[in-house]
């Protein structure tokens, strides 16, 4: 049984599955990309062929355009695709809508790339499914024991309490456009907030995709200057960067909130001038990371990005071997990174002539070969 280290390798382009001829979440254009989820640091344009869950494909196409990659192929939960000697399937990761773990089996050994994930319940996406494996590849965004996310419903409760105490002010909550925004709306609805939720223009497109994928978000309205009177006492969602911009002047004496796992640490909240920090994250916290490692039972855990040293130290004490992949290019969008999501970098459309980098030669036809769902997921 070949050790996964012999067939799954961190290369500058991304994690390469050599016998399968594809990369997982490549950061540079490649021939074949398996994408875990649609955040811009994991789902980049310029690949020849992309395989992902149906919802991830829809989100990617809405964000990047249908021309961003040449072919798109959807793979449903648990469906198995054979690529060379590799059996490939996707299982939910619970991070955002469509987010998947990539399960790969090669000659009896199994590796799971979890992508970004969380274990807390989220009404807007399928819950994480633990898959026993020989190597578990994990993120480590919040891998310090100070990060223990409280129940998200309690944090939403604090937002609504503040709204009740300051009914004449606008509560504006900074959140990332894909995932966090829709989760906040769903949490607000679950808490009984049935009034309109107002959105900064940058948040609307992803909400439309969520709705098209069957996630009900209720009455959403643009937070335009024309709506100024309605914004008094309302709840507005906006990208974190917009709160300090001219845009925010339409708001009535705003209470500035921010929904992020980083809000757990006071200094982080203070630096951003946040008045109402809400500790709501789409990433696994310290306890979830450790519990997940134990649950999948892998003797070896690879850490892609984040604070790997603490996690490797902690699992090492339980007899699990940790390995830091130190992969660059992840953690640019949502909690994993800085304040504002970067715009997708413009790239030339891929040429049919072959991979831009040293990706393996294309298989026959340049697509994904046989599979249950065929080519092109439009």
């Amino acid at each position, binding site marked *: 049984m070949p050790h996964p280290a012999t067939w799954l390798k961190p290369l500058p382009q991304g994690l390469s599955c050599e016998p399968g001829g594809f990369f997982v979440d490549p950061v540079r254009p490649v021939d074949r990309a398996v994408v875990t989820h649609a955040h811009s640091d994991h789902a980049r344009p310029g690949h020849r062929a992309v395989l992902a869950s149906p919802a991830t494909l829809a989100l990617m196409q809405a964000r990047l355009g249908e021309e961003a990659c040449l072919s798109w192929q959807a793979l449903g939960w648990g469906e198995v695709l054979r690529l060379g000697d590799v059996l490939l399937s996707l299982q939910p990761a619970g991070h955002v809508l469509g987010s998947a773990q990539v399960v790969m089996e090669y000659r009896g050994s199994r590796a799971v790339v979890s992508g970004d994930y969380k274990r807390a319940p989220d009404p807007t996406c399928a819950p994480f499914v633990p898959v026993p494996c020989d190597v578990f590849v994990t993120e480590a965004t919040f891998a310090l024991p100070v990060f223990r996310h409280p129940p998200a419903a309690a944090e939403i409760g604090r937002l609504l309490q503040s709204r009740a105490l300051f009914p004449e002010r606008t509560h504006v909550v900074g959140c990332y456009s894909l995932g966090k925004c829709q989760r906040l709306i769903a949490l607000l609805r679950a808490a009984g907030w049935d009034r309109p939720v107002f959105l900064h223009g940058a948040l609307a497109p992803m909400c439309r995709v969520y709705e098209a994928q069957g996630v009900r978000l209720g009455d959403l309205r643009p937070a335009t200057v024309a709506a100024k009177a309605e914004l008094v006492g309302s709840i507005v969602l906006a990208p974190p960067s917009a709160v300090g*911009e001219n845009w925010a*002047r339409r708001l009535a004496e705003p209470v500035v909130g921010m929904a992020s796992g980083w809000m757990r*640490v*006071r200094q982080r909240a*203070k630096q*951003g001038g946040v008045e109402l920090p809400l500790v709501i994250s789409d990433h696994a916290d310290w306890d979830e990371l450790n519990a997940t490692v134990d649950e999948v039972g892998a003797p070896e855990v690879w850490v892609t990005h984040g604070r790997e040293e*603490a996690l490797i130290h902690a699992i090492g004490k339980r007899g699990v071997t940790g390995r830091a992949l130190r992969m660059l290019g992840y953690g640019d969008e949502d909690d994993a990174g800085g304040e504002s999501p970067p715009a997708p970098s413009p790239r030339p459309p891929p040429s049919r002539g072959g991979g831009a980098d040293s990706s393996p030669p294309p298989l026959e036809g340049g697509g994904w070969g046989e599979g249950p769902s065929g080519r092109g997921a439009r």
Partner: protein
Amino acid sequence: MIAFAALLERLVFTPGRNAKIALLRRYFETTPDPDRGIGLAAVTGALAFAAAKPGLIRDLAAARTDPELFAWSYDYVGDLAETVALMWPTVATGEKAPSLAEVVHTLETAPKGALPGIVADWLDTSDPSVRFALLKLITGGLRVGVSSRLAKVALAELSGGRIGADEIEEVWHGVAPPFLSLFAWAEGTGPRPDPDAAPNFRPLMLAHPLEPGDLAGLDPAVLRAEWKWDGIRVQLVATPLGRRLFSRGADDISPAFPEIVEAMAFHAVLDGELLVLRDGVVAPFADLQQRLNRKIVTAKLLREFPVAVRLYDMLFEGAEDVRPLPFDARRARLEDFFARTRPARMDVSAMIPFGTVEDLAALRDGARAASIEGLMLKRGDSPYVPGRPKGLWWKWKRDPLTVDAVLMYAQRGHGKRSSFYSDFTFGLWRPAETGGEELVPVGKAYFGFSDAELGFLDRWVRAHTVGRFGPVREVEKALVLEVAFDAAQFSTRHRSGVALRFPRISRIRTDKPAAEADRLATLMRVVEGA
């Protein structure tokens, strides 16, 4: 404890005064006695005890956490109490978090040796936010930015406007945590707490700034004039039950000025200015600053920065409330009292003779001596009225000095101004060590201009940003601001070596190239005592 922790959590992040008052009011409304009173004492700094040193917390953490994980976490969070609050391993004890009153009572009575075990039990039954509040309370590191005045305004709101904040002020120093009688009075279920002869603060009478338009309406015949001293306003209260020295904000600052308290061998309530005085000469404000905000004073400080009080009014003589008397009568009582008692470290602020308003203007323009800010004008027939009544007292500050400085950094405001860069750091040129010229920051000022100018500065900052540090932007060194200030004083705390008193931006000088802005040496020439 849960409600108190939630209050702290919000207060720490809330910059706005009105929002803080609303948060306090809700806490008072929704928290039962005696917890709310203990909470009131805690946020206003009246519970100044440190039951444990940080070492106790460190030891507890060491016993419960992995040392390497603790080191990484502490390194990341940067605050010991917060690190422990966040990473304390959760134990499902099923017990409720302790009440605030229980915590404070236990801290005051438990033997020192029992403390680590008690604290560990509390931490086990709490969530991170309660743990943080607990640890800060235990180590005396609770800093929430709530003045006692703010808490009194919130209490006044709790009464639904029936009781003013000034009335609460009058009884404040006669009540103690958990303030049961005070809350009962505010909620209309009990009588006004009787302050008896306790040494209480009495709300101050304040002056209006004299505007140019006011000059014509002044009647020199009824006006009295004094110098406006650049110290801090204090109230001296000495009754048979005790002696206290209060700041303008009703904070008890007696411990910082023991020599004044010692000299208060009388029964009266007096109003005056606290100054550093050497051989009868008033020292610059920077000297007085060395004595402010200290809990304990050393013999060296007492020797090097000797303070005195320059008296200018009397509110009570013995038990007699003389506030309804006209100023002239109070002044006569003050002078008689002073001649009789001759308290050490005190004198009486001189009255300045004058004939006409023109005389006053000339006096004010000539007031360039250190530590004189300008003139105080008081009507001879004015009673002592708390607050800022119209048409009785005026302060007439000397014209400000100005300097042309270069904008260096800008920071966003809060609330309505949270999207505007409205807080500016500016600097002056000086020779750089490496040759050439460099800018050194000399001060910081909030906006003091029209909406149009605010908009202009905000756009300018956004268009000329060269660096970002959290909420602060560094800008191109290209915009000249005319900065007005009342005085410049030597300072060892500032990189430039000089501190400005009351700096404000008076004009935007788009007409002036940055290279032609003033040099630090120019400012140094007007530094007091230089």
